């Protein structure tokens, strides 16, 4: 697919081609990622054979486990718990250094001491989603029945399954009500599902850059990504872990394509333009002449070292299946009928993956259900990724909403 040129760009190609036969070898990083699937470097709650997770696919998954992190202290009333829901490729390491990549937690700007979700004040929980690959049961986990990874024998997961798993975790932790559920993108989908499935357990909900259903365009992008993974001969029908291969090229291409959808045209142009990468003229080859090519290749390479390809298939599928209105006879308002939850919906002007119109549809439904809802559209040219970045307007809105809700809830 991508031919290695003689001039080495800054971020050369996928994986580390073996000198002799060109096959991929596994880096220590991806081996570390692999070990996280069963034995995560975080807290983990285990559910036995008699405590199955009832999944939408009609499967009772047991035994199963959910990997999570907590920050801060639960107060005596147990009223200050905040659940953070992560996006497609996120994990439970929201505010601590990631054990695989060594990079800071993925939402350090939002969660931490003195941040909008202040860990000096709130007891923050973040769990890896069901179907994930960072310690919650998923396709990379070992199936106790066979002693081998589940691979494609794992049932297809849904956003509702993810939320059910989180609810089971909270039951175990003795937390009846969440003060707030917060998440962006797929995390926002979980926030909406929480509010619909467990209205009495959610005092406040903050879905950011989210939608109540995945659009045809978004399903289309996901399908391209999945086909890239499955077209890689090293995917081996999903059995790559057993056969000692990795569909790194396919997964990297999937990530490259997806990454474009997280940005905006204007942000790409500002950051890269048509600039050349370490050269002053085209090489008349298919090498990464342009900075944007080099950047995307880097995104692809770094992703495959930390993420499981089958997990990518499952979690993208969960997003595709998400349609909250469909669960309520086609009426989104019905999903929130009688809800006492306080909602704050945030979108970004340049987000074309989860555009403001998606957020407005949520707001309209909440209005029709007479729910309490605030809505802010943040001016940003950074696209969908804006929710993960330093966006002062988003922090101001989140802070105002969370602080006011905490006053009503009586949280010091």
């Amino acid at each position, binding site marked *: 697919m991508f031919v290695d040129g003689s001039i080495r760009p800054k971020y050369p190609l996928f994986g580390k081609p073996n000198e002799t036969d060109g096959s991929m070898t596994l880096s220590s990083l991806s081996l570390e990622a692999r070990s996280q699937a069963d034995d995560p470097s975080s807290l983990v709650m285990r559910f036995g054979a008699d405590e199955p997770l009832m999944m939408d696919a009609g499967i009772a998954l047991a035994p199963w486990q959910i990997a999570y992190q907590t920050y801060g202290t639960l107060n005596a009333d147990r009223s200050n718990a905040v659940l953070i829901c992560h996006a497609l490729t996120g994990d439970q390491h929201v505010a601590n250094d990631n054990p695989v990549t060594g990079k800071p937690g993925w939402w350090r700007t939002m969660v931490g001491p003195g941040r909008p979700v202040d860990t000096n004040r709130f007891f923050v929980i973040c769990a890896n989603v069901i179907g994930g690959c960072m310690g919650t049961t998923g396709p990379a986990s070992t199936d106790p029945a066979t002693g081998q990874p589940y691979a494609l024998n794992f049932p297809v997961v849904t956003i509702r399954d993810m939320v059910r798993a989180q609810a089971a975790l909270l039951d175990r932790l003795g937390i009846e009500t969440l003060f707030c559920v917060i998440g962006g993108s797929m995390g926002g989908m979980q926030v909406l599902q929480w509010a619909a499935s467990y209205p009495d357990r959610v005092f406040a909900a903050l879905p950011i850059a989210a939608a109540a259903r995945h659009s045809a365009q978004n399903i289309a992008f996901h399908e391209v990504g999945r086909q890239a993974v499955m077209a890689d001969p090293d995917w081996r029908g999903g059995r790559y872990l057993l056969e000692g291969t990795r569909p790194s090229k396919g997964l990297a291409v999937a990530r490259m394509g997806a990454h474009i959808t997280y940005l905006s045209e204007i942000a790409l142009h500002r950051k890269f333009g048509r600039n050349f990468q370490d050269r002053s003229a085209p090489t008349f080859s298919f090498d990464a002449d342009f900075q944007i090519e080099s950047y995307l290749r880097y995104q692809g390479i770094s992703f495959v070292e930390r993420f499981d390809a089958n997990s990518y298939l499952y979690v993208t599928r969960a997003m595709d299946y998400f349609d909250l209105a469909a669960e309520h006879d086609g009426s989104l308002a019905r999903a929130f009928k009688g809800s006492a939850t306080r909602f704050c919906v945030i979108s970004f002007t340049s987000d074309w993956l989860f555009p403001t119109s998606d957020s407005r549809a949520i707001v309209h439904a909440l209005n029709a259900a007479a729910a309490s809802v*605030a*809505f*802010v559209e943040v001016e940003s040219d950074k696209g969908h990724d804006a929710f993960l970045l330093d966006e002062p307007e988003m922090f101001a*809105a989140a802070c105002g909403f969370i602080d*006011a809700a905490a006053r009503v809830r009586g949280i010091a």
Partner: protein
Amino acid sequence: MAPSLAVPTTDTLTGHRLDFLLVADMVEPGSRVLDVGCGDGALLSLLRERRNVDGRGIELSREGVNACLAKGLPVIQGDADTDLADYPDDAFDYVILSQTIQATRQPRVVLEHLLRIGRRAIVSFPNFGHWRVRVDLALRGRMPVTENLPYSWYDTPNIHFCTIRDFVELCREVGAQMEKAVALNAGGKPMQVSLPWWVWNLLGYQGVFLLKRG
């Protein structure tokens, strides 16, 4: 906050705007209220404190929305001209349009939505029939630009000024029933109810109307 013809006059004791206090008096305690163009949420806060309302807001500016969020007010960033259509019928007991109708693109459509969404509508607006405005136009031959009305004709957000009489005529056209009508003088105080319309139209700085579907 939509620019006002009259500088808002405040109650010296409480600091609340007099026109807001007047609006608050029109709202039944414990009702559901939507404030369209709610600015920083001052009126909604007042209504929550004094009338124990379940208040919601729509506001165009992000600064306004953020100020409302910090007060714990559920306010949606949106536009009266485009977003009212999405609200169901009879969703609120009162829909308030305070000092905003003159800045909308389609005042008549907006008014019709107010009457559809709310069982009652409360509309307040600056009176363009006030004698100082008339003097400016009649004697100077210029669109009025004063301390109270600082915009030039070409950059004003107030694109649909009307007089109290104009508004009364619009209410008749859309079939709205006037339950209460009050004109506020330059000091922000209600004028005598017994005065004829033409006096209100000449001396009133603002009109405040409580309306109901006809």
